[in-house]
């Protein structure tokens, strides 16, 4: 019962925050609503016992990426952009997307949970969440982990190169 309550609370945060993110005129307001949405996602992680991802979501997304966004919003002068038209003329494409996902959600509400069948899981011995992630990440997925660090290095160098002033 409490699970249900928390799920719908977080779902409201996620979807309401998301809708307000893409409809606000001011980019700073959008960023604030995106934070609300990301906190809802973090709550959903906690609800599913993914504690490590919860911490990563808070520290990295809300503490890292959102601060980066707000810095850039301050660096780039958005006052001019706020006075202009906010939406382009691709609403028909967006409407098609809404129709597709709307049909899926309608099917779910109409048929109920039983319409979606997944193969049953095999029961596994429970362990602490962070320990399990570390075990798998540093043994089975060690190479992708190192590749991800190279990707981050490339991103650091690339973004500095993009953002720095050219001295001629």
């Amino acid at each position: 019962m409490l699970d249900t309550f928390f799920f719908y609370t977080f779902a409201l945060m996620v979807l309401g925050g998301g809708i307000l993110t893409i409809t606000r005129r001011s980019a700073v307001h959008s960023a604030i609503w995106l934070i609300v949405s990301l906190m809802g996602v973090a709550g959903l992680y906690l609800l599913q016992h993914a504690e490590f991802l919860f911490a990563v979501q808070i520290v990295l997304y809300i503490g890292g990426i959102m601060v980066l966004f707000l810095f850039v919003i301050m660096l780039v002068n958005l006052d001019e952009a706020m006075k202009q038209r906010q939406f382009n003329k691709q609403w028909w494409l967006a409407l098609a997307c809404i129709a597709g996902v709307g049909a899926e959600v309608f099917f779910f509400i109409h048929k109920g949970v039983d319409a979606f069948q997944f193969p049953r899981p095999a029961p596994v011995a429970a362990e602490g969440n962070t320990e399990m992630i570390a075990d798998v990440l540093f043994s089975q997925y060690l190479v992708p982990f190192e590749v991800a660090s190279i990707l981050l290095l490339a991103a650091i160098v690339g973004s500095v190169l993009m953002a720095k002033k050219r001295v001629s």
Partner: protein
Amino acid sequence: MFHPITTVHYLMLSAALLLIGTVGVLTRRNIVIILMSIELILNAVNINLVAFSKYYQNVVGQIFAIFVITVAVAEAAVGLGILIALFRNKETVQADEVDLLRW
């Protein structure tokens, strides 16, 4: 009164969030908000991965979610760097005014 929350509920929430992000990318003109919409899309994918990770009691889904977050960080950093360079050169942040490569 309420059904118990199942994996399908999470999948539907994820689909709705993905939809919101897609609509944002398709219809907004401001590049900063387009990048925020991409973050929403990646978060929808993560909800999906964690839901299945919980359902199958398999931690690999969460590992992939960590990789998705890594890629999202790299994407946001490079995208915002490009945005700063763009604003310095063209004095605009509207996506459809950047049409140098348009045929």
